[in-house]
C-alpha cells in the first residue's frame, strides 16, 4: 500500500449530523432489525446523568429518528437478541438500567427482568423488622445500621443513613413492613447464542453486575440459566464478550476494572483470570474464529492475547484509544479492528498492521459496524461532542490485504548517521599536533604546572590574609569610616545586620595593628545584640606613634575581624588602609 492509495478513501461519507446532541457510550449502540422487516435500524441510548433529565432509547431508521422512549434510569448497555424462532423474526432489544433489564420488542416494552437480590446482612434485616414495631428507638437502630459495612447495606438503608435525622422517621414509615432488597446494578451485557451459531439464532442475554456476578438468562422465560462469579478475588466486570453456544460449549470473556481479563466456561461457577495488565482496559473485542482477545489500553497500546492468555502481539497507536469496534468483512473472510482515537480519527487494524484510516468529526465515543437499512457495510460513529456520523464502506475496498507483508520493513536503515562534518579547524589542529606532539605536550604540562602554582599561591595568599572571609549565611555588613588628619584618628565601624528576620548576637570586633605604628583605644570590643535590619556603630580612637627622625611611612593598614563567641573562624574580616598623617598640619 503506497501513500497514494491511502488518499482515495475507502469510505463514503453518508451522513453527519452535528446537532444530534447524543451522549452515547461504547456498547450502547447496536444495529438491529427491530421490526423484523429486514430493514436494520440503529438503536442507541442517549444518556443523561443529571437528575432532572431523563435518558432515552432512540431508534433511527436510516438517518431518521423514528422512536424515542424515556428510560427510567441511566442505561449502561444495550443488546438485541432473538427470543424465539417464530416468524416473523423480531429481535428483542434489552436495555440495562440500574439493576433492571428492560426488554423491548417491536419498540414496545415487553418484559422487565430484575437481577436477583444479594444476601442481606442479618443485622440489617433485623433492624427493618424492628422498625415496624411501635415504640422502638429509631436512633438506636440507625446506630446499629451504621456499624454494618456501608457497602453491604441495601440501597434503602444507605439512603437512610444519608438523611437528616428529622427526615428519617418519615422515610422509615414509607418502607415499614417490607424487607429491603440488596440489588446490584447491571454494568455490562452481551449475548450468547443458545444452540446455533447462526446470526438469527436464539441467544441468551449475559449480564454482569457491580458485585461481580455473571448471569446467563433464558431468552424465553427470562430466568437465570447460569450464575457465576467473575473471579475468585473481588473483580468488577466492565465488558463482557462471548463466543460459542450455551448448549454446547461457550467462553465468556470478562474485562474487569482491576485490569484483569477473566474467562468463564460452561459449567464453571467461577471465572479464571487469564491476563493481568498494568494499565486500565478501555475496550475489549473477541475476534470470531480464532478467538483472539483484542484489548485497547490507556497506554495507547493494542494487545492481542490468545484465549489462554498468551500475548500474540502488541501495537502502539498514535493517540489515546477511546473505543474499539469489530469490522467483519465476509467477502474478504477477515476481520478488521476499528480503533477510535482521541482527536477524531478511526484506524483500521488487520492484525497488528494499520491498513486504513478514516476521520470522524471529533473523538469517537461509540462505534458500530454492520448492516443498516439495506446497506451491508455501514459504520456509525457517535462522537463525544454528540455528532452522529454514518460512513459506508465501498464495495471495492479490499484493503490490499493480499500484499500485507511488504509493509513491515523498517525504512530507517537507509538514513545516514547524523555525524558532524569535519571542520577545517579540527584538521588543522590535529595536523599541528601530529607535527610536534612532544613540544605541545611539554608546553601544556608546563602551563598546567604554572596554573596550579598560581592557583596555590592565590589560595595561600587568601588564607593568610583572611580578607574577604565573608560568610554568606551571616548576612552582616561592615563599613568603616576614618575621621581626622592625624596623628589622632577616629575610626567608626558600622556593623549592619542585613538579615531580615534574625537578630545577631555574641559578636565582638578585634583590631590588628602594628603596635609600633598605631595605638588604639581598645583592641577588642564586644558588640551588643543587633536586631534585624538595624546597625551598630563602634568608635575607636587611633593614635599614630610618631617617631622623629624616622622616615614617615605612607600609611599602614589596620585589620578588623568580626568574630562570634566560640567560633574560631571570623565571620567577617576587613583591612582598613589608614591615611598618612599630614605632617604639615602637625607643624601648624
Amino acid at each position: 500500500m503506497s501513500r497514494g492509495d491511502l488518499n482515495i478513501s475507502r469510505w463514503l461519507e453518508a451522513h453527519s449530523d452535528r446537532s444530534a446532541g447524543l451522549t452515547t457510550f461504547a456498547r450502547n449502540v447496536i444495529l438491529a432489525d427491530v421490526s423484523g422487516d429486514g430493514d436494520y435500524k440503529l438503536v442507541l441510548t442517549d444518556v443523561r446523568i443529571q437528575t432532572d433529565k431523563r435518558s432515552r432509547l432512540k431508534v433511527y431508521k436510516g438517518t431518521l429518528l423514528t422512536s424515542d422512549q424515556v428510560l427510567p434510569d441511566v442505561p449502561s448497555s444495550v443488546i438485541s437478541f432473538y427470543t424465539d424462532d417464530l416468524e416473523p423474526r423480531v429481535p428483542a432489544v434489552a436495555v440495562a438500567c440500574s439493576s433492571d433489564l428492560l426488554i423491548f420488542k417491536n419498540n414496545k416494552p415487553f418484559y422487565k427482568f430484575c437481577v436477583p437480590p444479594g444476601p442481606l446482612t442479618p443485622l440489617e434485616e433485623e433492624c427493618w423488622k424492628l422498625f415496624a414495631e411501635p415504640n422502638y428507638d429509631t436512633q438506636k437502630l440507625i446506630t446499629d445500621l451504621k456499624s454494618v459495612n456501608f457497602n453491604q447495606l441495601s440501597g434503602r438503608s444507605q439512603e437512610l443513613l444519608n438523611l437528616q435525622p428529622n427526615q428519617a422517621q418519615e422515610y422509615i414509615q414509607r418502607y415499614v413492613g417490607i424487607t429491603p432488597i440488596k440489588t446490584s446494578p447491571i454494568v455490562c451485557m452481551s449475548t450468547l447464542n443458545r444452540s446455533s451459531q447462526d446470526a438469527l439464532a436464539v441467544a441468551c442475554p449475559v449480564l454482569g453486575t457491580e458485585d461481580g456476578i455473571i448471569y446467563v438468562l433464558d431468552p424465553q422465560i427470562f430466568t437465570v440459566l447460569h450464575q457465576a462469579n467473575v473471579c475468585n478475588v473481588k473483580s468488577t466486570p466492565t465488558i463482557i464478550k462471548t463466543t460459542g453456544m450455551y448448549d454446547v460449549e461457550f467462553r465468556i470473556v470478562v474485562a474487569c476494572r482491576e485490569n484483569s481479563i477473566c474467562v468463564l466456561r460452561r459449567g464453571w461457577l467461577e471465572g479464571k483470570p487469564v491476563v493481568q495488565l498494568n494499565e486500565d482496559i478501555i475496550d475489549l473485542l473477541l475476534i470470531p474464529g480464532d478467538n483472539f482477545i483484542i484489548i485497547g489500553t490507556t497506554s495507547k497500546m493494542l494487545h492481542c492475547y490468545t484465549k489462554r492468555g498468551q500475548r500474540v502481539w502488541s501495537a502502539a497507536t498514535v493517540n489515546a484509544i477511546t473505543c474499539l469496534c469489530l469490522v467483519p468483512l465476509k467477502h474478504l473472510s477477515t476481520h478488521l479492528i476499528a480503533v477510535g482515537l482521541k482527536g477524531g480519527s478511526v484506524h483500521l487494524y488487520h492484525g497488528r498492521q494499520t491498513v486504513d484510516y478514516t476521520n470522524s468529526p471529533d473523538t469517537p465515543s461509540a462505534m458500530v459496524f454492520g448492516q443498516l437499512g439495506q446497506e451491508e457495510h455501514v459504520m456509525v460513529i457517535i462522537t463525544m461532542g454528540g455528532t452522529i456520523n454514518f460512513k459506508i464502506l465501498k464495495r471495492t475496498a479490499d484493503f490490499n490485504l493480499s500484499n500485507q507483508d511488504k509493509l513491515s520493513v523498517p525504512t530507517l536503515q537507509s538514513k545516514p548517521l547524523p555525524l558532524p562534518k569535519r571542520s577545517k579547524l579540527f584538521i588543522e589542529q590535529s595536523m599541528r599536533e601530529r607535527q610536534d606532539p612532544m613540544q605541545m605536550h611539554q608546553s601544556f604540562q608546563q602551563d598546567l604546572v604554572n596554573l596550579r602554582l598560581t592557583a596555590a599561591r592565590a589560595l595561600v595568599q587568601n588564607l593568610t590574609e583572611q580578607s574577604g572571609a565573608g560568610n554568606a549565611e551571616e548576612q552582616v555588613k561592615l563599613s568603616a569610616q576614618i575621621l581626622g588628619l592625624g596623628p589622632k584618628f577616629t575610626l567608626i565601624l558600622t556593623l549592619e545586620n542585613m538579615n531580615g528576620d534574625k537578630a545577631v548576637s555574641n559578636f565582638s570586633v578585634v583590631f590588628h595593628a602594628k603596635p609600633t605604628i598605631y595605638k588604639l583605644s581598645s583592641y577588642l570590643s564586644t558588640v551588643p545584640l543587633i536586631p534585624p535590619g538595624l546597625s551598630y556603630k563602634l568608635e575607636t580612637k587611633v593614635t599614630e606613634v610618631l617617631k622623629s627622625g624616622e622616615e614617615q611611612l605612607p600609611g599602614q593598614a589596620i585589620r578588623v575581624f568580626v568574630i562570634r563567641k566560640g567560633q574560631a573562624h571570623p565571620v567577617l574580616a576587613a583591612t582598613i588602609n589608614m591615611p598618612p598623617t599630614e605632617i604639615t598640619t602637625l607643624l601648624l
Partner: protein
Amino acid sequence: MSCLANGKENVRISAFSSLQKSSEMSWPEPNPLEKLNWLIHLQHVRGETQQCKELIKSEIKKSGGRNEFAYFKQGMILREEGKIQEALESFQICMKLNPEHADNIKEVGKCLYEMRRFRLSLEAYLEAEKVSSCPDWQIYYNIGQCLMRLGEIPKAKEYAHKAVQIGKHENAYSLYIKILVAEGDLRTAVAVCNASIESCPDSVNMLTEAGILCLKMGQTQHAFEKLSSALALDPACSKALLGIGCITQSHDEYDVALTKYKVAVSYEPNSIALWNNIGMCFHSKQKHIAAISCLKRALWLSPTNWRVLFNLGLVHLATYQAASAFNFLCAAVNLRPDVPHSFTSLGCALFELNDYENAGRAFRQAQALAPEDPLIIVNNVLCLLLSDRKQEAMEMIEKFNLVAQQDGAVAKDVATLAEKLAAKLEDSVSSENRTANGICSEHEELNNNGDGFENDNMAAVAAGGRISPDLAQHTFRQVFVYYSVLDKENDETVSCYEVETSSIMHSWYFKMTGTAWPTLPPLTSRPCMAGLDEVASGNLSREFEPDEV
C-alpha cells in the same frame, strides 16, 4: 415503523412506567449508591478526566461521602495528575470506608512508594498481604521493590521469588532477575530469564534481558539467538540492536554492526554505549575522524565514562596525536585506577612523547595490576629496551616466556613481537654498535607484516638513530588490536548498566566524582601524574608538585 412514531408509543411508555410504579406501591426501592460506578470507570479510562471528576464529585455528594469507588477513582486521577499527597488522602478515605479491601491498601502503598517513603509503603503492603484473602503477586512484587529500595536484598529476593511463583508476570520476573544480577548470580538469572520467556514468549524486554545476560556470561551464540528473536518482534528495540551490534562487531563485521547501530541510534539518540560502539566501528574501519566525532559525542553525554575516554585515547594514538591521547588516557586512569590496560596505553602515549621515565612507571603500574598479561610485559620490555635498561628487559623477557608457557593463548602477533624483541635484546647486548642496522632490518620485516600503520618518515628516523619508533608503533598497534576487542566486551556492561538504571553503577560514578574530584575540572586537562599519584607511591608525585607552595 411509521405507526410507532404517531404518538401511540408515548402512551405505551407512560403505561410502562405507571406499571412499574404500581408494582412497587408508591415508593420505589431506592437505587444502590454504586449504580454509576461503571460510568466513572468508563470516563476515567477514556481520558475524560474533567467530566469524570464532576461525576465523582456529584456521586460523593449524593452518597454523603461514603462511595468507596468514587474516592478510589478520585485517588487514581489525582495520582495521574501528580498530586500524590491528595491521592493518598483519597485512598485513605477508601481504607477507612472499607478496611477489608486489599486494593485500597495497595494503592496507599503505591502512593507512599511514589513519595519515596519506602518504609511506610512496605508497611502498607505488608498490611495488604495480611488482609488479602488469597496470595496476590502484585503485593509480593511491590514488597520486593520496597525491600530493594530499603537495601534488604535477601528479603526482597524472597518476595520476588514468591511473586514469580504466583504471578508469572513479566514485571515480577524482571525484578527477580534484577536482584539476581545485583547479587552476581548470572547463571540463575539466565535460568529465570528463560523461564520467563516460556511464560511470556513474546516479551521483547525479557528476550533482550536474556540476550544481554548471555552476553555477560560469554554465551555469544545464545545471546545472538535471543536478541534476534527480540528484534523479530520489535525491529526498533534499541537495546537488542546494541547487543546484536556488539556481537557482530566482535566478529569483525563492522558494516553489519553499523547498520544495527544506525537503526538503534535513531530511536535512542542519547545512548552513550551506542555512540561509543559506533565510534569503535569507525575506528576499526580506519575512519578516525568519524570515530573521534562519535566518541566525543559519547563523552559529551557522559563526561566521566572511562571507557569512552579510554577509546578516545586509543583513537588519538592511532592518529599520532599523542598529546591529546595522553590527556584522555589520563582522565580514564583517574576515573578507574584499577584497569591495567589504561596504564598500558598511557605508557604508550608517554612513550610516544619521549617521556621514557614516566612511561616506564605507567607500565610498571599496569604490570602491578595485571602481572600475568603478556601484552603488558611486551610493552614494558620495549620501554626498558629503549631506555637502555637491558638487564631489566632481559628479566622481563624471561618472565614473558614463563607466562607464555603457562597459558598458550597468547595472541600470535604479540608472540612474534616478543620473539623479535628478545632477539634484538640479545643482539644489542652482544654488540651494541650494530643496533641501528639490526633495527633497520627488523623494521623492514615488520613492515612486511603489513598493517599500513608504519610510516616511512618514522622508518627513516629509525634507520638513523637508536630509537625505533615504528617498533614502538607496532607495539601500540598491538595494544589497539587487543583493545578494540576488550572495548566491545565492556560495552555490553555499558549497555547493561544503561539498561538497568540500577543504582549500583550510578552510585559508583557518584563516588568517583565525589571523592576524587570535589570540583570536576575539565577532564582532558587532567595531567597524568596526578593519576599516578593516587595509585602509585607518594614518591612519584613530588617532582610534579609546585615547590613554592
